[in-house]
């Protein structure tokens, strides 16, 4: 196809029908359709004959197709440079804003053992993996130096509720220190919920700490992946999700904005049970489901023989689950898939929701920083996870000794920023999904031994391409009801946080 | 004993020297030079140690050469 195309495009003739710069891809599951996007990320899905006519500069003026191509800025003679510039700018509004997400690892201790634990948890008696008050305060001082006027402090572990006292101290200390600085501060707690009680919940709600958790599927799957001694991890999570959402309701908070955020780490046993998974999340009152594939960090690397799967199987699971979610939405149920929401926001609205792992340049170092229990600073939480596996590539400083500007200007940060720009990436430069995509270099480094990565072999690229193929198929379907659902998923709500 | 021939147009001489300095204490390293290459003869207590020492030395010299090459390319 491409040979015929490029052959037909030469010799150069400049007339109104000639295409401007574009990238294209045949949809694998709908090969009669071709997605094309331009430099600024406007897009069209064309039938194959129309696409060939467009690419060969043979669409007649005055036809509806010609008009559509002109409106979407796909014709060289009518190319609207100021409009394109404005769109490119809007898509990159986050560049230069500085680190917003700050992940604080209060302890590595955890009362649950997960087969895939990305964080390399420690046993409950390993108190030497607790953050000291001094390091916690220094971390907050460091965070408040960020150039970003809004910061989110995300409590991670291990299990952060093991050190609820320290969490409380950090929230109080950060709010107190911020009185003179005036940043917008949010707090997020990522917890397995098993150490939650009513007193802690009261405090968290009173101090506006958003609560995020994991539910990996029905009880048998969840409890097999996430082992809690003497109790069901699933039972605890489900009980507290219900209770927390109930409290939000009692307080009269808007349920669409205030609810427990939960995500699933997709392991092999759940691939065929997508319907049960979606139903479970709906029953729990969750408005969003994040179908995350397994990451190659922490214990997941050692247990992959049991829980990993080919990414083609993941894409099938994703398509089935989201098809079902769309149907539920048509029936009035509100549940969105987080990956789809991120991509659709970029595709349909032209703005970037600033999800740090799917943007370019990636958020590592310039959009997020991770602070380990011992005060070491990393470009991102995955960089911290690699450190626990013996790889210090992404360690960029220490809260006790490093200066803020040295940390964010560290050579590892610069390398990651350069490596994550898809304008320098083979394959991506010709991919129509480039304006909406992003690959964290830490993933390529782990899987392929290079920050730059080879996208054709990248499991993450396979996931991103698979999801976007699916979304463009839906957008091209012309089904009004489906389009309304997808459009609704792009609404950015002020209370939304993306769990990293 | 194992002889490594570092081609002059592929390796930076100073970096081969630097590698020899770092690994010299792990065995006997002899340096020679001809028109096209720096030649390092590696010998250690056993064949396995000689093989490993030669490998580590080669990796170190290549790593430094690439780093210098990139630094020059970037400036």
């Amino acid at each position, binding site marked *: 196809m491409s040979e015929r195309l490029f052959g037909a495009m030469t010799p150069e003739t400049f007339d109104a029908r000639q295409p401007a710069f574009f990238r294209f891809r045949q949809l694998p599951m709908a090969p009669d359709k071709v997605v094309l996007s331009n430099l600024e990320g406007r897009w069209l899905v064309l039938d194959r004959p129309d696409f060939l006519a467009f690419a060969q500069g043979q669409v007649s003026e005055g036809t509806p197709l010609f008009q559509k191509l002109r409106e979407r800025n796909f014709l060289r003679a009518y190319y609207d440079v100021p409009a394109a510039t404005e769109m490119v700018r809007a898509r990159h509004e986050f560049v230069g804003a500085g680190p917003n997400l700050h992940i604080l690892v209060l302890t590595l201790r955890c009362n649950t053992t997960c087969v895939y634990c990305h964080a390399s948890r420690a046993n409950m008696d390993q108190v030497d993996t607790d953050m000291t008050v001094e390091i916690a305060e220094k971390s907050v001082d460091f965070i408040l130096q960020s150039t970003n006027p809004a910061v989110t402090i995300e409590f991670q572990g291990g299990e952060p509720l093991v050190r609820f006292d320290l969490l409380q101290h950090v929230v109080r200390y950060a709010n107190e220190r911020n009185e003179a600085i005036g940043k917008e501060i949010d707090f997020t707690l990522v917890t397995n919920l098993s150490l939650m009680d009513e007193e802690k919940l009261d405090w968290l709600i009173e101090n506006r700490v958003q609560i995020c958790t994991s539910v990996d599927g029905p009880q048998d799957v969840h409890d097999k992946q996430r082992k809690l001694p003497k109790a069901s991890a699933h039972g605890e999570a489900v009980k507290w999700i219900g209770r927390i959402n109930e409290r939000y309701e009692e307080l009269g908070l808007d349920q669409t904005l205030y609810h427990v955020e939960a995500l699933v780490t997709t392991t092999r046993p759940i691939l065929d049970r997508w319907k049960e998974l979606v139903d479970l999340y709906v029953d729990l009152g969750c408005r969003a489901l994040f179908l995350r594939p397994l990451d190659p960090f922490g214990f997941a690397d050692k247990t992959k023989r049991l829980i990993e799967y080919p990414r083609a199987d993941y894409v099938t699971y994703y398509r089935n689950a989201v098809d079902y979610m769309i149907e539920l939405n048509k029936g009035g149920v509100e549940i969105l898939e987080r990956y789809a929401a991120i991509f659709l926001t970029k595709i349909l609205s032209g703005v970037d929701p600033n999800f740090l792992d799917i943007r370019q340049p990636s958020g590592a170092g310039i959009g997020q920083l991770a602070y380990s229990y011992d005060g070491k600073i990393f470009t991102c939480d995955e960089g911290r996870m690699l450190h626990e596996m013996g790889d210090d590539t992404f360690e960029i400083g220490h809260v006790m000794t490093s200066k803020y500007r040295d940390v964010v200007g560290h050579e590892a940060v610069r390398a990651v920023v350069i490596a994550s720009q898809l304008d320098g990436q083979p394959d991506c430069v010709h991919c129509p999904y480039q304006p909406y995509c992003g690959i964290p270099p830490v993933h390529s480094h782990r899987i392929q031994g290079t920050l730059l990565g080879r996208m054709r072999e990248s499991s993450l690229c396979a996931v991103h391409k698979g999801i976007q193929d699916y979304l463009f198929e839906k957008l091209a379907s012309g089904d009004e009801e489906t389009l309304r659902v997808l459009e609704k998923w792009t609404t950015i709500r002020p209370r939304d946080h993306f769990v990293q | 004993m194992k002889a490594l021939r570092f081609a002059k147009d592929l390796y930076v001489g100073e970096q081969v020297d630097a590698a020899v300095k770092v690994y010299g204490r792990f065995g006997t390293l002899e340096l020679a030079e001809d028109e096209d290459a720096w030649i390092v003869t590696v010998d250690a207590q056993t064949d396995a140690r000689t093989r490993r020492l030669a490998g580590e030395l080669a990796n170190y010299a*290549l790593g430094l050469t690439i780093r210098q090459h990139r630094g020059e390319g970037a400036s």
Partner: protein
Amino acid sequence: MSEPLEATPHAFVRADREDGSVSFVVDESVYPLEAIYGATFTFLDRCFVFLGREGEGQVRVVLSAKKLPIADDELRGWVGELANELLACAWRGRILEQNRATIEAVTSQAIGGAMGPPSLDELEDFDFSEEPFEDPLGIAMSWEEKYGKKDKSQGGETEGT
């Protein structure tokens, strides 16, 4: 002893099972030295890597196992991955050259934005004497030096806008 490795191109690839190594001849007219450096660098953590001159415009890359013995499958895996990485590096080099301005602009804005301006303390600590001042845009040059009339005898073309 060097011999062919099954399911790899025999013209380029030889294996030495006793030594636990595989070698791959790379043509510099297809893969520039920069790409060979880039690709082989990604192997330093898992093999011993050695580059040798094979002939005019040809480099032999030798990858040796850090631990013996090693299976043929693993050697084959290295060859495949090296070939893919070589292609990626060669192509990336050309793309980076084409898109250098964009990438540099985004990088400087991203890093500069995240760092913010230096504090007075940091300015005090800054050693201005360490490196000679580079002035690629000629900002520190006098107007005469930068835009002074050229000697007509030097000729030169007039660019239209």
